[in-house]
Protein backbone atom coordinates (compact mmCIF):
# COMPACT_ATOMS: atom_id res chain seq x y z
CA UNK A 1 0.00 0.00 0.00
CA UNK A 2 1.49 3.33 -1.02
CA UNK A 3 1.52 6.57 0.95
CA UNK A 4 -1.37 8.06 -1.00
CA UNK A 5 -3.74 5.25 -0.03
CA UNK A 6 -2.46 5.33 3.56
CA UNK A 7 -3.09 9.08 3.70
CA UNK A 8 -6.60 8.85 2.27
CA UNK A 9 -7.59 6.07 4.67
CA UNK A 10 -6.21 7.84 7.71
CA UNK A 11 -7.83 11.17 6.83
CA UNK A 12 -11.18 9.54 6.18
CA UNK A 13 -11.13 7.46 9.36
CA UNK A 14 -10.43 10.64 11.32
CA UNK A 15 -13.33 12.43 9.63
CA UNK A 16 -15.55 9.50 10.56
CA UNK A 17 -14.48 9.71 14.21
CA UNK A 18 -12.90 6.28 14.11
CA UNK A 19 -10.07 6.47 16.62
CA UNK A 20 -9.56 2.88 17.75
CA UNK A 21 -7.42 0.86 15.32
CA UNK A 22 -7.05 -2.87 15.93
CA UNK A 23 -4.84 -5.21 13.96
CA UNK A 24 -2.69 -8.29 13.85
CA UNK A 25 0.05 -7.04 11.56
CA UNK A 26 0.18 -8.43 8.04
CA UNK A 27 2.42 -7.39 5.21
CA UNK A 28 0.11 -5.72 2.64
CA UNK A 29 -1.48 -3.36 5.21
CA UNK A 30 1.61 -2.84 7.35
CA UNK A 31 2.24 0.70 6.05
CA UNK A 32 -1.30 1.65 7.10
CA UNK A 33 -1.24 0.10 10.57
CA UNK A 34 2.21 1.47 11.26
CA UNK A 35 1.08 4.97 10.23
CA UNK A 36 -1.91 4.69 12.59
CA UNK A 37 0.40 3.52 15.36
CA UNK A 38 2.54 6.65 14.86
CA UNK A 39 -0.47 8.99 14.81
CA UNK A 40 -1.58 10.15 18.28
CA UNK A 41 -5.18 10.47 17.09
CA UNK A 42 -5.49 6.70 17.12
CA UNK A 43 -5.43 4.22 19.94
CA UNK A 44 -3.61 1.40 18.17
CA UNK A 45 -4.06 -2.10 19.55
CA UNK A 46 -2.24 -5.21 18.39
CA UNK A 47 -4.07 -8.46 19.08
CA UNK A 48 -2.59 -11.95 19.36
CA UNK A 49 -5.36 -13.57 17.32
CA UNK A 50 -7.92 -12.24 14.85
CA UNK A 51 -10.78 -13.91 16.72
CA UNK A 52 -10.04 -11.99 19.88
CA UNK A 53 -9.52 -8.90 17.71
CA UNK A 54 -13.06 -9.08 16.40
CA UNK A 55 -14.46 -9.72 19.89
CA UNK A 56 -12.39 -6.80 21.20
CA UNK A 57 -13.76 -4.52 18.48
CA UNK A 58 -17.30 -5.72 19.22
CA UNK A 59 -17.02 -4.85 22.91
CA UNK A 60 -15.60 -1.45 22.08
CA UNK A 61 -18.15 -0.77 19.33
CA UNK A 62 -21.23 -1.77 21.33
CA UNK A 63 -19.80 0.31 24.14
CA UNK A 64 -19.83 3.34 21.84
CA UNK A 65 -16.25 3.50 20.49
CA UNK A 66 -15.81 3.82 16.73
CA UNK A 67 -13.23 1.27 15.62
CA UNK A 68 -11.57 -0.25 12.58
CA UNK A 69 -10.11 -3.73 12.32
CA UNK A 70 -7.33 -4.13 9.76
CA UNK A 71 -6.59 -7.62 8.53
CA UNK A 72 -6.30 -9.89 5.48
CA UNK A 73 -8.12 -12.91 4.13
CA UNK A 74 -6.28 -15.31 6.43
CA UNK A 75 -7.34 -13.10 9.32
CA UNK A 76 -10.97 -13.22 8.23
CA UNK A 77 -10.76 -17.01 8.06
CA UNK A 78 -9.29 -17.21 11.56
CA UNK A 79 -11.88 -14.74 12.85
CA UNK A 80 -14.87 -16.40 11.19
CA UNK A 81 -16.17 -17.87 14.47
CA UNK A 82 -15.99 -14.49 16.17
CA UNK A 83 -17.52 -12.78 13.13
CA UNK A 84 -20.46 -15.19 13.12
CA UNK A 85 -21.14 -14.37 16.75
CA UNK A 86 -20.43 -10.65 16.79
CA UNK A 87 -22.05 -10.08 13.41
CA UNK A 88 -24.98 -12.41 12.92
CA UNK A 89 -25.88 -12.83 16.60
CA UNK A 90 -25.05 -9.47 18.15
CA UNK A 91 -24.83 -6.95 15.31
CA UNK A 92 -21.66 -5.18 16.35
CA UNK A 93 -20.85 -2.23 14.07
CA UNK A 94 -17.24 -2.96 13.12
CA UNK A 95 -15.59 -1.51 10.02
CA UNK A 96 -13.09 -4.04 8.68
CA UNK A 97 -10.41 -3.16 6.14
CA UNK A 98 -8.98 -6.35 4.67
CA UNK A 99 -6.21 -6.77 2.14
CA UNK A 100 -7.64 -8.95 -0.62
CA UNK A 101 -4.81 -11.46 -0.61
CA UNK A 102 -4.94 -13.71 -3.64
CA UNK A 103 -6.84 -11.27 -5.82
CA UNK A 104 -5.46 -10.59 -9.29
CA UNK A 105 -2.44 -8.37 -8.88
CA UNK A 106 -1.13 -9.98 -5.69
CA UNK A 107 2.54 -10.40 -6.52
CA UNK A 108 3.59 -10.67 -2.89
CA UNK A 109 5.48 -13.87 -3.48
CA UNK A 110 3.51 -16.34 -1.39
CA UNK A 111 2.81 -19.65 -3.13
CA UNK A 112 0.20 -19.61 -5.87
CA UNK A 113 -1.72 -22.40 -4.20
CA UNK A 114 -2.20 -20.14 -1.16
CA UNK A 115 -3.18 -17.18 -3.34
CA UNK A 116 -5.75 -19.29 -5.17
CA UNK A 117 -7.19 -20.55 -1.89
CA UNK A 118 -7.58 -16.95 -0.63
CA UNK A 119 -9.24 -15.94 -3.89
CA UNK A 120 -11.59 -18.91 -3.79
CA UNK A 121 -12.72 -18.51 -0.17
CA UNK A 122 -12.71 -14.75 0.48
CA UNK A 123 -16.02 -13.63 -0.97
CA UNK A 124 -17.93 -16.91 -0.36
CA UNK A 125 -16.78 -16.73 3.28
CA UNK A 126 -18.16 -13.22 3.72
CA UNK A 127 -21.37 -14.24 1.98
CA UNK A 128 -21.72 -17.28 4.24
CA UNK A 129 -21.20 -15.10 7.29
CA UNK A 130 -23.70 -12.60 5.86
CA UNK A 131 -21.18 -9.80 6.18
CA UNK A 132 -21.82 -7.04 3.62
CA UNK A 133 -18.68 -6.18 1.67
CA UNK A 134 -17.33 -4.20 -1.23
CA UNK A 135 -14.22 -4.63 -3.30
CA UNK A 136 -12.21 -1.39 -3.44
CA UNK A 137 -9.66 -1.35 -6.24
CA UNK A 138 -9.49 2.29 -7.34
CA UNK A 139 -7.92 5.14 -5.45
CA UNK A 140 -10.51 7.54 -6.82
CA UNK A 141 -13.29 5.71 -4.95
CA UNK A 142 -11.41 4.85 -1.75
CA UNK A 143 -12.54 7.83 0.32
CA UNK A 144 -16.18 7.52 -0.66
CA UNK A 145 -16.16 3.75 -0.01
CA UNK A 146 -14.84 4.28 3.51
CA UNK A 147 -17.38 7.03 4.18
CA UNK A 148 -20.27 4.93 2.90
CA UNK A 149 -19.20 1.76 4.69
CA UNK A 150 -18.64 3.64 7.93
CA UNK A 151 -22.15 5.05 7.75
CA UNK A 152 -23.67 1.73 6.70
CA UNK A 153 -22.03 -0.28 9.44
CA UNK A 154 -23.49 2.06 12.07
CA UNK A 155 -26.83 2.21 10.31
CA UNK A 156 -27.08 -1.57 9.80
CA UNK A 157 -25.44 -2.20 13.18
CA UNK A 158 -23.37 -4.92 11.60
CA UNK A 159 -19.76 -5.57 10.58
CA UNK A 160 -18.85 -4.43 7.08
CA UNK A 161 -15.75 -5.39 5.12
CA UNK A 162 -13.90 -3.40 2.49
CA UNK A 163 -11.66 -5.73 0.49
CA UNK A 164 -8.69 -3.62 -0.59
CA UNK A 165 -7.04 -4.58 -3.84
CA UNK A 166 -5.93 -3.22 -7.24
CA UNK A 167 -4.24 0.16 -7.24
CA UNK A 168 -5.36 0.79 -3.64
CA UNK A 169 -3.20 -2.03 -2.34
CA UNK A 170 -0.71 -3.48 -4.80
Amino acid at each position, binding site marked *: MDQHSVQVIIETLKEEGID*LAVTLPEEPTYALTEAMRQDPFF*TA*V*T*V*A*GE*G*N*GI*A*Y*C*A*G*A*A*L*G*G*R*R*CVFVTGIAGLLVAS*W*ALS*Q*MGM*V*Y*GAPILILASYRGDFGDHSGIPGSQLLMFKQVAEPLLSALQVPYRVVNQKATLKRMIQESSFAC*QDYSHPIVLLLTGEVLW
Partner: protein
Amino acid sequence: MKRYDCLKLLAPMVDAHMLTVTSLSSNTAMWSALRTEGANFLGCNMGLCLPFALGLTAAFPKRKVIALDSDGSLMVDSSSLITVADVNPPNLVAIVFDNSSYARMGSTFTARRTDLEKIAQGAGIKNTGTVRTHEEFSSSAKQALETAGPSFLVVKVEPDRERVKGDPHRTYGRAMREWFMDAVRHHPDYSGAGKKSG
Protein backbone atom coordinates in the same frame (compact mmCIF):
# COMPACT_ATOMS: atom_id res chain seq x y z
CA MET B 1 -16.83 -24.59 46.45
CA LYS B 2 -19.88 -23.84 44.35
CA ARG B 3 -19.92 -21.29 41.53
CA TYR B 4 -23.26 -19.81 42.57
CA ASP B 5 -22.05 -19.17 46.11
CA CYS B 6 -19.07 -17.25 44.73
CA LEU B 7 -21.29 -15.21 42.43
CA LYS B 8 -23.54 -14.39 45.38
CA LEU B 9 -20.49 -13.08 47.22
CA LEU B 10 -19.44 -11.06 44.17
CA ALA B 11 -22.79 -9.43 43.37
CA PRO B 12 -22.83 -6.88 46.25
CA MET B 13 -19.28 -5.80 45.35
CA VAL B 14 -20.33 -4.76 41.82
CA ASP B 15 -21.58 -1.18 41.69
CA ALA B 16 -24.24 0.14 39.33
CA HIS B 17 -21.75 1.56 36.84
CA MET B 18 -19.48 -1.44 36.44
CA LEU B 19 -20.01 -3.58 33.37
CA THR B 20 -20.05 -7.36 33.30
CA VAL B 21 -19.66 -9.99 30.59
CA THR B 22 -20.37 -13.69 31.01
CA SER B 23 -19.36 -16.75 29.05
CA LEU B 24 -21.96 -19.12 27.68
CA SER B 25 -21.95 -21.35 30.74
CA SER B 26 -23.70 -21.57 34.08
CA ASN B 27 -22.22 -18.11 34.68
CA THR B 28 -24.88 -16.61 32.44
CA ALA B 29 -28.04 -17.90 34.09
CA MET B 30 -26.65 -17.53 37.59
CA TRP B 31 -25.31 -14.01 37.10
CA SER B 32 -28.48 -12.84 35.35
CA ALA B 33 -30.45 -13.92 38.40
CA LEU B 34 -28.12 -12.04 40.72
CA ARG B 35 -27.58 -8.82 38.73
CA THR B 36 -30.83 -7.79 37.15
CA GLU B 37 -29.85 -4.15 36.53
CA GLY B 38 -26.88 -2.48 34.87
CA ALA B 39 -24.86 -3.29 31.78
CA ASN B 40 -24.48 -7.06 31.51
CA PHE B 41 -23.45 -8.68 28.24
CA LEU B 42 -24.44 -12.28 28.81
CA GLY B 43 -23.73 -15.58 27.13
CA CYS B 44 -20.64 -14.84 25.04
CA ASN B 45 -19.91 -18.00 23.13
CA MET B 46 -16.68 -20.01 23.40
CA GLY B 47 -13.52 -17.96 23.47
CA LEU B 48 -15.19 -14.58 23.19
CA CYS B 49 -16.00 -13.48 26.75
CA LEU B 50 -12.60 -12.17 27.78
CA PRO B 51 -11.76 -10.27 24.57
CA PHE B 52 -15.26 -8.77 24.43
CA ALA B 53 -14.80 -7.51 28.00
CA LEU B 54 -11.40 -6.16 27.00
CA GLY B 55 -13.09 -4.17 24.24
CA LEU B 56 -15.53 -2.69 26.73
CA THR B 57 -12.61 -1.43 28.81
CA ALA B 58 -11.67 0.75 25.82
CA ALA B 59 -15.17 2.24 25.74
CA PHE B 60 -15.47 2.69 29.53
CA PRO B 61 -11.93 3.42 30.73
CA LYS B 62 -13.07 4.82 34.08
CA ARG B 63 -15.21 1.82 35.08
CA LYS B 64 -14.34 -1.69 36.06
CA VAL B 65 -15.30 -4.28 33.47
CA ILE B 66 -15.67 -7.77 34.87
CA ALA B 67 -15.34 -10.83 32.64
CA LEU B 68 -16.99 -13.89 34.20
CA ASP B 69 -15.37 -16.50 32.03
CA SER B 70 -15.05 -20.26 32.28
CA ASP B 71 -12.22 -22.73 31.73
CA GLY B 72 -13.54 -24.33 28.55
CA SER B 73 -14.26 -20.95 26.98
CA LEU B 74 -10.91 -19.40 27.83
CA MET B 75 -9.02 -22.40 26.47
CA VAL B 76 -10.69 -22.01 23.07
CA ASP B 77 -8.76 -18.78 22.58
CA SER B 78 -6.14 -18.44 25.29
CA SER B 79 -4.24 -16.05 23.00
CA SER B 80 -6.67 -13.43 24.29
CA LEU B 81 -4.60 -13.49 27.50
CA ILE B 82 -1.64 -12.23 25.49
CA THR B 83 -3.78 -9.42 24.09
CA VAL B 84 -4.97 -8.55 27.61
CA ALA B 85 -1.38 -8.42 28.87
CA ASP B 86 -0.29 -6.22 25.98
CA VAL B 87 -3.22 -3.79 26.20
CA ASN B 88 -2.81 -3.86 30.00
CA PRO B 89 -6.09 -2.15 30.91
CA PRO B 90 -6.22 -1.09 34.56
CA ASN B 91 -10.00 -1.52 34.64
CA LEU B 92 -10.28 -5.18 33.61
CA VAL B 93 -11.09 -7.90 36.12
CA ALA B 94 -11.11 -11.42 34.66
CA ILE B 95 -12.66 -14.09 36.86
CA VAL B 96 -12.48 -17.56 35.39
CA PHE B 97 -14.67 -20.20 36.99
CA ASP B 98 -12.77 -23.42 36.53
CA ASN B 99 -14.88 -26.49 37.18
CA SER B 100 -12.55 -28.67 35.11
CA SER B 101 -15.43 -29.95 33.06
CA TYR B 102 -17.28 -29.33 29.82
CA ALA B 103 -20.74 -29.02 31.39
CA ARG B 104 -21.62 -32.69 32.00
CA MET B 105 -19.51 -33.98 29.10
CA GLY B 106 -16.30 -34.90 30.82
CA SER B 107 -13.22 -33.20 32.11
CA THR B 108 -11.30 -30.31 30.61
CA PHE B 109 -7.53 -30.05 30.50
CA THR B 110 -7.42 -28.25 33.85
CA ALA B 111 -8.39 -31.55 35.46
CA ARG B 112 -5.07 -32.88 34.21
CA ARG B 113 -1.95 -30.79 33.56
CA THR B 114 -3.16 -27.35 32.47
CA ASP B 115 -2.86 -24.39 34.84
CA LEU B 116 -4.74 -21.30 33.65
CA GLU B 117 -3.06 -18.96 36.13
CA LYS B 118 0.37 -19.97 34.88
CA ILE B 119 -0.77 -19.42 31.30
CA ALA B 120 -1.93 -15.92 32.26
CA GLN B 121 1.36 -15.24 34.01
CA GLY B 122 3.27 -16.48 30.99
CA ALA B 123 1.18 -14.21 28.78
CA GLY B 124 2.40 -11.30 30.87
CA ILE B 125 -0.47 -10.55 33.26
CA LYS B 126 1.01 -9.53 36.60
CA ASN B 127 -1.96 -9.63 38.99
CA THR B 128 -3.05 -13.25 39.05
CA GLY B 129 -4.38 -15.70 41.58
CA THR B 130 -6.08 -19.04 42.08
CA VAL B 131 -8.63 -19.42 44.87
CA ARG B 132 -10.29 -22.49 46.39
CA THR B 133 -12.29 -21.17 49.34
CA HIS B 134 -15.04 -18.58 49.81
CA GLU B 135 -12.77 -16.49 52.01
CA GLU B 136 -10.04 -16.45 49.38
CA PHE B 137 -12.58 -15.60 46.70
CA SER B 138 -14.10 -12.68 48.63
CA SER B 139 -10.74 -11.24 49.50
CA SER B 140 -9.25 -11.60 46.00
CA ALA B 141 -12.33 -10.33 44.18
CA LYS B 142 -12.55 -7.29 46.48
CA GLN B 143 -8.89 -6.52 45.91
CA ALA B 144 -9.24 -6.87 42.14
CA LEU B 145 -12.19 -4.48 42.11
CA GLU B 146 -10.46 -1.91 44.27
CA THR B 147 -7.01 -1.83 42.69
CA ALA B 148 -5.61 -1.16 39.23
CA GLY B 149 -5.45 -4.21 37.01
CA PRO B 150 -5.70 -6.05 34.84
CA SER B 151 -6.46 -8.79 37.35
CA PHE B 152 -6.88 -12.45 36.53
CA LEU B 153 -8.44 -14.81 39.02
CA VAL B 154 -8.98 -18.55 38.61
CA VAL B 155 -11.78 -19.80 40.86
CA LYS B 156 -11.74 -23.54 41.39
CA VAL B 157 -15.35 -24.71 41.70
CA GLU B 158 -17.25 -27.99 41.66
CA PRO B 159 -18.88 -29.09 38.43
CA ASP B 160 -22.45 -27.85 38.38
CA ARG B 161 -24.82 -30.66 39.29
CA GLU B 162 -27.75 -29.39 37.31
CA ARG B 163 -28.28 -27.22 34.28
CA VAL B 164 -29.44 -23.73 35.17
CA LYS B 165 -31.53 -21.91 32.58
CA GLY B 166 -31.79 -18.18 32.37
CA ASP B 167 -34.67 -16.13 31.08
CA PRO B 168 -34.10 -16.33 27.30
CA HIS B 169 -35.50 -12.83 26.84
CA ARG B 170 -32.73 -11.34 28.94
CA THR B 171 -29.82 -13.70 28.69
CA TYR B 172 -29.19 -14.72 25.10
CA GLY B 173 -28.78 -13.37 21.57
CA ARG B 174 -30.46 -10.27 20.19
CA ALA B 175 -32.89 -9.95 23.09
CA MET B 176 -30.01 -9.82 25.57
CA ARG B 177 -28.21 -7.37 23.29
CA GLU B 178 -31.14 -4.97 23.41
CA TRP B 179 -31.19 -5.11 27.22
CA PHE B 180 -27.47 -4.50 27.25
CA MET B 181 -27.64 -1.61 24.78
CA ASP B 182 -30.43 0.03 26.74
CA ALA B 183 -28.33 -0.13 29.90
CA VAL B 184 -25.21 1.08 28.09
CA ARG B 185 -27.05 4.03 26.50
CA HIS B 186 -28.18 5.11 29.96
CA HIS B 187 -24.65 4.78 31.36
CA PRO B 188 -23.24 8.19 32.36
CA ASP B 189 -19.94 7.50 30.56
CA TYR B 190 -21.48 6.34 27.28
CA SER B 191 -20.37 8.48 24.35
CA GLY B 192 -21.80 6.55 21.41
CA ALA B 193 -24.92 7.04 19.33
CA GLY B 194 -28.36 7.03 20.92
CA LYS B 195 -27.29 8.18 24.39
CA LYS B 196 -30.16 8.37 26.86
CA SER B 197 -30.34 10.38 30.04
CA GLY B 198 -30.68 8.88 33.48
